C-alpha cells in the first residue's frame, strides 16, 4: 500500500517535471525556429550588393543600405540622448533621493513610462515633435521619440548597476573627505559603468527593432540616398520590412528581399543582445571573485 502510494507520488513528480521541461523547451524551440527559418531563407538574399546599395526598380532589386544607416542613426541618436539623461536620473534616484515622496513619484513615472505601448509613443511623437514642435517627419522626430521610449530602460538598468556598487566604496571615499558629488563621479560611476553600458546596449537593440514608434515620426518607405540631414525623413529596417511584407505591389518579387531584410534586422538586434549578455556575465563573474 505504502509502496504504491510512494510510486504514484514519484510518477506524478516525474510527469510534472516533464511538463515543466517541455514548457521551457517550447520557448527555446520558438526562438531557434524563428532564427533558423530566417537564416535559411534569408542567407541566399544576402550579398555585398544587398548590404551596400540602395533599392532599385520600386524595391524589387538592389539593396537596403539606406535602411541600415537609417536604423543606426535613429538608434544611436536616441541613445545619445537617453543615456546621459537616464544615468543622471538613476544617480539622483539612487544616490540622492532615497525614499522621499518626490522620488516615489518619479519611480511611479518611470514604471508607467516603461509600460506605455510603442504605438502610443508614436502618436505622442506625431502630435508633439512632428506637429507642435514643427520637426515634421524626420530623423530628429524619430530620435526624440525613441529617446523617450528608451529612457525607462536606461534608468532601470543604471539604477540596478549603482545598487551593485558596495556601500563600503562610497563610505571609504566620503571618509577621506570627498564630497558626495566627488564620490559619485570618481567612485560610484566608474564602478557602475559596465553595468550601465549593458543597459545602454539593451536600449540600443530595443530602439533598433522598434517599428510602431517611428512609423509616423521618422520613417518613409522610399527616399533617395542616405539620410543627409536631421530634418529629413529616413528609411529604417523595421519599417522597410513591414511595408515590403504587407503592402508592396509585387510581394512575390520582393520575397527574397523581405527575408534578407528580416535576417539583417535579426542579426543586428540579436547580435547586440548577445554582446550585452556576454558583458553582463563577465561582470557577474568579476563581482563574485
Amino acid at each position, binding site marked *: 500500500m505504502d509502496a504504491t502510494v510512494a510510486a504514484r507520488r514519484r510518477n506524478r513528480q516525474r510527469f510534472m517535471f516533464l511538463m*515543466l521541461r517541455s514548457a*521551457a523547451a517550447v520557448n527555446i524551440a520558438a526562438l531557434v525556429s524563428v532564427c533558423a527559418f530566417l537564416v535559411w531563407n534569408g542567407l541566399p538574399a544576402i550579398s555585398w550588393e544587398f548590404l551596400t546599395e540602395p533599392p532599385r526598380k520600386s524595391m524589387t532589386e538592389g539593396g537596403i543600405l539606406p535602411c541600415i544607416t537609417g536604423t543606426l542613426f535613429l538608434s544611436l541618436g536616441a541613445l545619445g540622448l537617453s543615456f546621459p539623461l537616464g544615468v543622471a536620473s538613476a544617480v539622483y534616484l539612487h544616490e*540622492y533621493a532615497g525614499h522621499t515622496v518626490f522620488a516615489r513619484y518619479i519611480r511611479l*513615472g518611470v514604471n*508607467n513610462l516603461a509600460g506605455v505601448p510603442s504605438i*502610443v509613443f508614436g502618436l505622442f511623437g506625431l502630435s508633439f515633435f512632428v506637429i507642435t514642435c514643427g520637426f515634421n517627419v524626420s530623423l530628429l522626430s524619430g530620435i526624440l521619440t525613441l529617446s523617450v521610449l528608451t*529612457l525607462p530602460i536606461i534608468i532601470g538598468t543604471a539604477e540596478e548597476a549603482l545598487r551593485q556598487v558596495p556601500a563600503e566604496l562610497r563610505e571609504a571615499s566620503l571618509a577621506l573627505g570627498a564630497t558626495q558629488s566627488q564620490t559619485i563621479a570618481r567612485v560610484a560611476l566608474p564602478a557602475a559603468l559596465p553595468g550601465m553600458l549593458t543597459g545602454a546596449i539593451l536600449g540600443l537593440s530595443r530602439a533598433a527593432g522598434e517599428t510602431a514608434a517611428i512609423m509616423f515620426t521618422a520613417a518613409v518607405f522610399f527616399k533617395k540616398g542616405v539620410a543627409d540631414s536631421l530634418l529629413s525623413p529616413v528609411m529604417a529596417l523595421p519599417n522597410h*520590412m513591414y511595408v515590403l511584407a504587407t503592402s508592396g505591389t509585387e510581394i512575390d518579387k520582393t520575397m527574397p528581399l523581405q527575408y534578407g531584410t528580416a535576417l539583417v534586422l535579426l542579426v543586428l538586434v540579436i547580435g547586440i543582445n548577445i554582446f550585452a549578455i556576454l558583458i553582463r556575465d563577465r561582470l557577474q563573474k568579476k563581482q563574485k571573485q
Partner: protein
Amino acid sequence: MSTAGFARKETYIRRILAGIAGCSLFFLALIMLFLFMEGLPVFGRLAPPDFFFGMGWYPTQEPPEFGIFPLIVGSLAVTLVSGVLAIFLGVMTAVWLTEIAPAPVRRVCKPLIELLAALPSVVVGFFGMVVIAPLLQRYLDVDTGLNLFNAGLMLAFMSVPIVCSVAEDALYGVPATLREASLALGATRWETTIRVVVPAAFSGIGTACMLGMSRSIGETMVVLMVAGGAGILPASIFDPVRPMPAAIAAEMAEAPFRGEHYHALFAIGMVLFLFTLLFNTIAQRIAEKNRQSLG
C-alpha cells in the same frame, strides 16, 4: 574652495540631477496631455457611449462610423489568448529554471529565454504571416490563417520572457527554509514546489502575469500583421480581428490631419494607454503588497 562653496556646489548638482530625473514624469504627463488634447475632440460630435460601445468601425464610409467596441473586444480577446498561453509557458518555465534545472543548464537556457524578448516585433509578425498562417490554413481548415489565434500565439512568445523573468525573481525570493521544511516532512520535490514554493511566490507571479498582459495589449506590429484586420466581433478563436493598436497603425497615415478620423484614432490611443496604465498599476500594487507582507 571654502566649505560653504562646496556645500553650495553640492546643492546645485543635487538640484540639476533632480530636474533631470523629473524628465520621466514630465514626459509621461506630456504624453497624456497630447493624447487627450488630440483625442478628446472626437467627443465634440460623438457621444462617448456611441464611441465606446458603437458596433461599427467604418471610418472612411459616408457617413463614417466610429464605434470602437469591436476593436476593444479584439484587443481583449488577443490579450486573453496570449495571456493564457504566456502565463502557462512563462510560469512553468520559471518554475523549471528555479526549482529543477541543474545550474549549467540554467546558465545556458536563461539567456536564451531573454533573447526571445529581443526579437523585434516586426520579425515575429513576419514569421506569423509567412509560416504560422499557411500552417493554420492547411491543417485546421480555417478561412484565413491571419486570425485571433495566430496573433495570440505570436504575442504569447513575446510576453513569455517578461512573465518568466518576473516570476523567476518571485520564486528566487522564497526562503530556502520553507523548501527544506517541506522536504524534511517527506514531501517530494514536486509537492514542495506546487504546495509550498509557488503559493509563497503567488503575488510575484501575479505581477508577472499582469505585466505580460500589459505587454500583449500594447504590442502593435504583431497584431497589425497577423490578426487579420477585420473590425468585427470574433465568433470563434479562428476569426480575424482588428485590435486597437492595429487600427491606429494601419489608418493614421490616411487619416486627414485633425479630421474626425484623426481624433478618433488618438482617442483609441487614449483607451489603449488607460488599459496599460490599469494593468501596470495592478501589477505594482500586487508587488508593493508583497514587499510589505514579506518585510
